[in-house]
């Protein structure tokens, strides 16, 4: 079965900057793909190409079975886009915003109004329906923006950094909304620079860096590429560090190319790659106890997507400090 979103070799150059350098993507129907990458990696440009806002220099894209370059208007009928900025008119009320979008999706005025009411209810905005969007909180605006993208229940949705700039509570709320949406069968392409978000919402993750997809797979597959689990121990006394390190080193998977036991002296922390899970952890605790080593903390740490990103790109995923740069494209 062909994917709901397919892209092959998308290239887009702005002046001297190659924003996209041959992006290939495939999103099967009814699944969520998380496009993960730092600012300027090409996430927004990819979304703009797939949503007909930008014409790629070369490459091919099919969305909802329709060729994006040949029939952009037909694609527009089958997609919803929720952008990085909450693109709602702040001087219109929530209801007026949604009704306008409905009418521009070619719905009759009355049908558009009924649909607006339905969405306001669904997104917990019914109480604020007749207030101008200017008075809404950041989280409410995002919800309104998302509602606007869902007016015609499009089979394919694009969300460009839907939770950037939201506080944790609002982020959680928006995640719940997105999960509901996906459980209804909508295909979703989501860009994010929050590794946690991709981990949480996406079936598949494509890591983008410098205009290219450098890895794609499930969160577990990507983590497996980075390596297995690690045991982290923080000892109480500085003089115990050597003994504890030697003890832990016995369990190290050093020979399998998983790296050495490392010691962070100032934090009294020892880390070693292991396999064996919780059972092993119990064993280590018993041995440390037998040696009379007091510990402040011990834990089994699985690789996070941060680790994945670091090992794939050689640099740490950036935080949201230069949002405007990507937006400028």
């Amino acid at each position, binding site marked *: 079965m062909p994917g709901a979103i397919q892209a092959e070799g998308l290239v887009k150059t702005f002046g001297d900057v190659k924003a996209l350098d041959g992006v290939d993507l495939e999103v099967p129907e009814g699944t969520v793909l998380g496009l993960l990458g730092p600012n300027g990696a090409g996430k927004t440009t990819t979304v703009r190409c797939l949503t*007909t*806002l930008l014409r790629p220099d070369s490459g091919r894209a099919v969305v909802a*079975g329709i060729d994006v370059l040949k029939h952009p*208007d037909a694609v527009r009928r089958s997609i919803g886009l929720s952008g990085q*900025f909450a*693109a709602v008119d702040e001087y219109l009320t929530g209801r007026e915003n949604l009704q306008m979008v409905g009418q521009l999706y070619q719905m009759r005025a009355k049908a558009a109004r009924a649909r607006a009411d339905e969405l306001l209810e669904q997104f917990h905005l019914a109480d604020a329906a007749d207030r101008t969007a200017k008075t809404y909180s950041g989280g409410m605006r995002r919800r309104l923006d998302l509602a*606007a993208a869902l007016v015609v229940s499009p089979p394919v949705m694009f969300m460009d950094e839907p939770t950037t700039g939201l506080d944790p509570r609002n982020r959680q709320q928006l995640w719940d909304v997105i999960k509901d949406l996906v459980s209804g069968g909508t295909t979703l392409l989501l860009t994010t620079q929050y590794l946690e978000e991709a981990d949480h919402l996406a079936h598949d993750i494509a890591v983008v860096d410098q205009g290219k997809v450098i890895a794609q797979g499930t969160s577990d597959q990507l983590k497996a590429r980075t390596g297995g689990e690690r045991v982290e121990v923080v000892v109480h006394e500085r003089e115990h560090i050597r003994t504890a390190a030697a003890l832990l080193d016995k369990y190290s998977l050093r020979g399998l190319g998983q790296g050495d036991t490392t010691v962070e002296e100032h934090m009294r922390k020892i880390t070693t790659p292991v396999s064996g899970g919780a059972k092993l952890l119990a064993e280590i605790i018993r041995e440390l106890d037998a040696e009379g080593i007091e510990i402040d903390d011990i834990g089994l740490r699985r690789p996070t997507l941060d680790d994945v990103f670091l090992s794939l790109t050689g640099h740490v995923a950036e935080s949201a400090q230069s949002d405007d740069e990507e*937006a400028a494209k």
Partner: protein
Amino acid sequence: MSAVTESVRVASHGNAFTRSVRDSLVVAKRNLIRMVRIPEVVIFGLIQPIMFVVLFSYVFGGSLDIGGSTSPQVYREFLMAGIFAQTVTFATAGAGAGIAEDMHKGLIDRFRSLPMARGAVLTGRTLADMVQTALTLLVLAIVALLVGWRTHTSIGEVLGAFGLLLLTGYAFTWIGAVIGLSVRTPEAATSGGLVWLFPVTFVSNAFVDSSNMTPWLRHIADWNPFSATVQACRELFGNPGVSTSDAWPMQHPVWASVIYSVLIIAVFRTLAVRKYRSAAA
């Protein structure tokens, strides 16, 4: 493939033209709601021309020679067509700033991702600006009557003059649309929409009798599209100071004004829609 058949069915609801009209009206309504909710914009848009009416009438009235008369009353009647015409062209700045703001806020992206008619966002904006211009003209006409402006022709001719003014204003808002789509910020669109209007409206017959200008400047003034509208209004209002220049636009000002406006719309609408289609926030 179901999506394709679906889209064909939706598209058959109306042809491209009715869809374009419908979408433009939806966007125009949106912009009119905004004008009601931000009345400052409309009010400040009124203050400037009213100030011009009062200042020009009382400061220049009596010292400028119009058709051999320096009577303040003659100058006031002469002046009004110029103020009316200048006021309608200043709508350019509002249209440009509004469109630049929509780009800046990401609304243009939203509109461009919707299956709507391509020119509708811009047409809707310019139509809403025309409504605002009409309102401004109405208030201005009342102020003008208060300071002593009178018409001496039939009601049909007077309404015709106001129709020409609206058409001129509408044409100029398309220039504003191109400016709004070309700059990065609403502020730049406002100043970019205004600066060039000063030479255009002052190197004309709007505030002084152009026959008193040096010949090369008079030529520019006589062929200035803006002058054609001013001359047409003076003729249709029966106000003094109608230019006797033998330049074609001064001899046939109504036709000249209509032709200029239609040309401006044709050129700048095409440019604006092309820019809109490739616009990036």
